[in-house]
């Protein structure tokens, strides 16, 4: 995916240590996308091999040197090209829920309906949390960073709404099939 470009985007603003890169990433998109240090370091290693990123060593007392990463001219060029392109891939249907639906016992539609119900309740709670974050953001000092965060929260809300609407449709179609006796054996 585009961990590569996220890291290039972060380094384009400022040279940073590995752990600062993680903090910046979490701060910007952590609500929707979680990365661990391993993923960050292996991506940085790859980007160095491709000459998109370099590092400097900073000596520390009684501890190994600290690496400070920065973006190269070629890295900046690739980032700008990537930013200018629209995204061509549709949102991937790789949700864990789809896999569950696929493997649930179709002889037991009641269990599927119960799962759908629970899933909807969970989405609603998450949407409420996102909304509360948005409200808090709107009350804080408004700057460009806050606007972008708000727009990402909105994206999360719209996607969750689509998921809930789809689950409602599933419910309705499964029930219709049950009354026609297609599913319950």
């Amino acid at each position, binding site marked *: 995916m585009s961990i590569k470009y996220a890291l290039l985007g972060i380094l384009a603003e400022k040279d940073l240590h590995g752990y600062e890169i993680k903090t910046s990433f979490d701060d910007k998109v952590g609500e929707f996308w979680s990365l661990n240090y391993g993923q960050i370091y292996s991506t940085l290693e790859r980007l160095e091999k491709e000459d998109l990123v370099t590092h400097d060593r900073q000596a520390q007392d009684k501890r190994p040197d600290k690496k400070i990463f920065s973006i190269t001219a070629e890295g900046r060029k690739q980032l700008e090209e990537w930013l200018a392109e629209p995204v061509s891939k549709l949102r991937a249907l790789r949700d864990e829920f789809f896999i569950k639906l696929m493997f649930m016992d179709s002889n037991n539609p009641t269990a599927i309906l119960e799962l759908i*119900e629970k899933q909807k309740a969970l989405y609603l709670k998450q949407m409420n949390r996102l*909304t509360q974050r948005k409200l808090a953001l709107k009350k804080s000092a408004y700057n460009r960073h806050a606007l972008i965060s708000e727009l990402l929260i909105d994206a999360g809300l719209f996607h969750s709404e689509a998921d809930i609407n789809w689950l409602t449709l599933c419910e309705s179609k499964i029930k219709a099939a049950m009354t026609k006796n297609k599913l319950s054996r």
Partner: protein
Amino acid sequence: MIELKNVSKQYRQGARAVYALKDVSLSIQKGEFLSIMGASGSGKSTLLNLVGGLDQPSAGEVFINAKPLHGISDSELTLIRRRQVGFIFQFFNLLPLLTAIENVGLPLLVDGLPFTRVKPMAEAILHKIGLAARAEHRPEQLSGGEMQRVAIARALITNPAVLLADEPTGNLDSHTGEEILLLLKSLHEQGQTIIMVTHDSKAAAYGTRIITLKDGALSQDVAIGGPLA
């Protein structure tokens, strides 16, 4: 504060009877912002109308502030409707020939108060929701978002115990709808009890509690703030 006890509502549609609500029991606390979700036809508006005294249940009881809405005279019910509840709707329901300030003052005017007394009160509310400059405009001169804010001001002028909103963002684009929801949320933060009907989960997420109606029955009650799983 609001209590529904085993409430059912039956409508006749020609020869057959339709249950719009089936044995719904629900209590709503003061200061709650309750969202009611459900497919169209699931009984959301019926429930709201019963709470607001616009309609009577076929069975069961409704109480506002421990006062029953049944077994009371028509004039007592009218009084509760006028003083205890404020309604807002999807299509705003403003009177087209009246200005914004006259629409806002209407609930008190029909109560017999003179316009000279109502005017400053209506002005104060319009000012509070940022519409002072629109006071002399008629609905057709206002945008959808402005019309809904006028409707909210009209609902608030009686200082109602509960604000009842039926699909308040249903006829607005996402951005304008969000502005209305932010206004409702700020009223809620100032202590206003709100019951809002919506089929939009993004709108419902503003509530402190979300219930779902299915075929007239209560199917899900999600209290917000508890653990996720």
